């Protein structure tokens, strides 16, 4: 997970600048308070239970005005800085505007859909150096899309699409996570944003809409099982389960819970609740040869 304060976009740079200002102001205020407290404690300690108490002071109008006006000036400054940064960071929220891609949160994974029909699960690809308008949706409960180095976080509220800017100034893989509690596996609702040069991105977009190679041999048997065992009901049509069209190209499974290896993939087939406790995938009784055939098919989905 990258820190929100190692920014890689105009928006997050702006947030980092505001944060640094707040940090400086807060540190100064804290030091003033701490100095006052510590000085009082040290200087006026143990003048003891004297026969007579110190001279009572009931207040001071000038001091009170001072410590009202100075904090007021500070918060007014912060407010101006806040509004200016908000204008820069916040994307337009016009209903029905055309977005560059649509990202949807599900319990518990993300997918991204592109205008040319490409679908990405797990790794969301974007062109480096170009600002994209993302339409954010939720398929079930409230999620929150957060790629700290690249963009502000934004809640994905069911029935209420929202928009945010997504941008990376340099190519690279930037991690992200769901940042709104969304149920049993909120912890494993992670994703990566892969920023690549424009040409690579366009090539990736084209590859994503190509079907995977035709399965042969045992993989062809797996492809048949994929349909007859109803895997395809959720994983190929509709949005109940993650799209698996190019599963073998993915580095991670289960929104980050494990690496994509034959062993971890087999666990999803034989005991999905062990692979990711609480997830919505039902148990499907499979014989050992059926598991091997399905694995062969899934491993062929490049």
């Amino acid at each position, binding site marked *: 997970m990258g820190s929100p304060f190692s920014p890689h976009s105009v928006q997050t740079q702006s947030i980092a600048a505001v*944060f640094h200002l707040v940090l400086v102001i807060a540190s100064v205020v804290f030091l003033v308070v701490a100095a006052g407290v510590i000085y009082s404690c040290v200087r006026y300690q143990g003048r003891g239970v004297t026969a007579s108490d110190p001279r009572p002071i009931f207040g001071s109008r000038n001091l009170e005005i001072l410590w009202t006006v100075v904090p007021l000036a500070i918060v007014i400054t912060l407010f101006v800085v806040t509004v200016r940064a908000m204008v820069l960071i916040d994307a337009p929220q016009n209903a029905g505007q055309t977005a560059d891609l649509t990202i949807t949160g599900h319990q518990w994974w993300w997918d991204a859909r592109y205008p040319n029909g490409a679908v990405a699960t797990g790794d969301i690809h974007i062109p480096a150096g170009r600002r994209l308008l993302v339409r954010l949706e939720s398929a079930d409960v409230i999620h929150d899309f957060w790629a700290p180095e690249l963009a502000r976080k934004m809640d994905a509220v069911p029935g209420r699409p929202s928009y945010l800017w997504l941008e990376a100034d340099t190519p690279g893989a930037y991690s992200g996570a769901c940042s709104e509690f969304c149920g049993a596996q909120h912890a494993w609702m992670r994703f990566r944003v892969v920023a690549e040069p424009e040409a690579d991105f366009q090539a990736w977009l084209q590859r994503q809409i190509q079907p995977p190679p035709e399965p042969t041999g045992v993989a062809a048997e797996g492809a048949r099982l994929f349909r007859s065992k109803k895997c395809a009901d959720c994983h190929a049509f509709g949005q109940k389960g993650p799209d698996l069209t190019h599963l073998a190209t993915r580095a991670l499974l289960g929104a980050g819970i494990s690496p994509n290896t034959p062993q971890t993939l087999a666990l999803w087939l034989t005991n999905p609740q062990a692979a990711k406790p609480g997830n919505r995938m039902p148990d499907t009784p499979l014989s050992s040869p059926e598991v091997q055939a399905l694995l062969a098919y899934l491993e062929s989905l490049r």
Partner: protein
Amino acid sequence: MTAWLCAIDHKRVGILYMLSALLFFLAGGLEAMVMRAQLAAPNLKLIAPEVYNQMFTMHGTTMIFLVAMPVLTGFAVYLTPLMIGANDTALPRLGALSFWLQLFGGVLLYISFASGNAPDAGWFSYAPLSEKPFSSGPGLDYWALALLLITGGTLGSAINLIVTIATERAPGMTMRLVPLFVWSTFIASIMIVFALPALAASLVLLLSDRLLHARFFDPAQGGAPLLWQHYFWIFGHPEVYIVVLPAFGMISEIIPVFSRKPIFGYPFMATSTVAIAFLSYGVWVHHMFAVALGRNFLAAFAAASMLIAVPTGTKIFSWIATMWGGAIRFTTAMLFAVAFLLEFTIGGLSGVAFATVPVDWQLTDTYFVVAHIHYVLFGGTVFALLAGVHYWFPKLSGRLLDETLGRWSFWLIVLGFNAAFFVQHFLGLLGMTRRVYTYPNLPWFGALNLISTIGAAILVFGILLFCANVAMSLFFGTVAGDDPWNAWTLEWAAASPPSIRNFAEIPTVRSRRPLWDRKHPEAPDWISV
């Protein structure tokens, strides 16, 4: 036993509140330790994800509704009549009923564990996660029903306190002369009356959805998930001040006595309390900055949220000015009060960071928030309460708490608290989201979480030492006498512990420090002010 079960005397009801809060505090602390154990290292599997979710839901719900509010209500119910020179609250039977509603609400909440499905949607239970399709067990029903009972109890005690303060003050005690703890209790009680109905309404909507197939929060049927958030936070943010203002009031009583100086700027302190109360109803959307609600809308709530820093800041400076030039005596009570000043300031300043919308857009729902709320609610409310317990224990029990044990527990609590929670600021800044049952092995995550867990263990040890001190001093403590601190407010004119009738003769009040006047007839406050 029967005497306690049937008690309507404000002192007994107050102590019942405090004892039940202590019990639930230990339960909530245990839940926190289960969480910290699970988070001690990356990818641990000590408990199942849904158990972890139950733990943080119960921890938050317990600490807010069964600890913070009841213990402050307990202090308020116990102390208010004594501080205003009355012999009981105005509505003692309502006071007793309120306690039992509150207690049975808590019991109902904890019975949910026996059903095998404790609530697990967070103390805020956002719809639609809290709706039947996503939380099908009975846990959320227990949660909503328990909170409805607790809401009823809290409203009852708040009404009792408002009426008591409005009508039962000793002759001569105008609202300009009541102790600041009473002022803050008064304001917090009024806030309860205006805030908790919003919670009750949202709970009824949620129960309608869950049990009667209503569709208030279901977007597919024309409902609005955000409606829950607006209702919940229009209660939820004033709630923070409901459990912080009385703690401020305690500090305003304790610092003067151990600095041997009257509170600095009493009118300003009372006014700033009222200002905070007003502003607190205009800030709830800062819990929803990450929702796309429109820039101008968010900016308005940001402005109100930032403004709260101003009256809060004047309080901090007034407390320092009270200590300045004083003759400070570091009893354990004063140590906790001074620590409060520093810990709460950290929590207040990180709060300003969250009012700054762009910062919130990165840090909300990270461990930075977890650090922030614990610096406010533990560093603020709990430290003030610990100061208050050490200060008023002699009045409640007739005996002093042991100072040596008190100091040990103080330093353990300070060390443990800061180790547990300060590092969580860094975890948030590194991108660790909150409410996760585990986390990947990213740079620093494991080390910082381990420090936090060790800190929490030290904190627990300090709290247990404090409990031991209370238990032992109750029987073996030094006899305190009526006025062990040479204090100035009326509760110290009553016996320790007070008899059923607090005052043999109702005192007449002419200044804010009636006992000062009595002890210093040569220079009473009502002449020098």
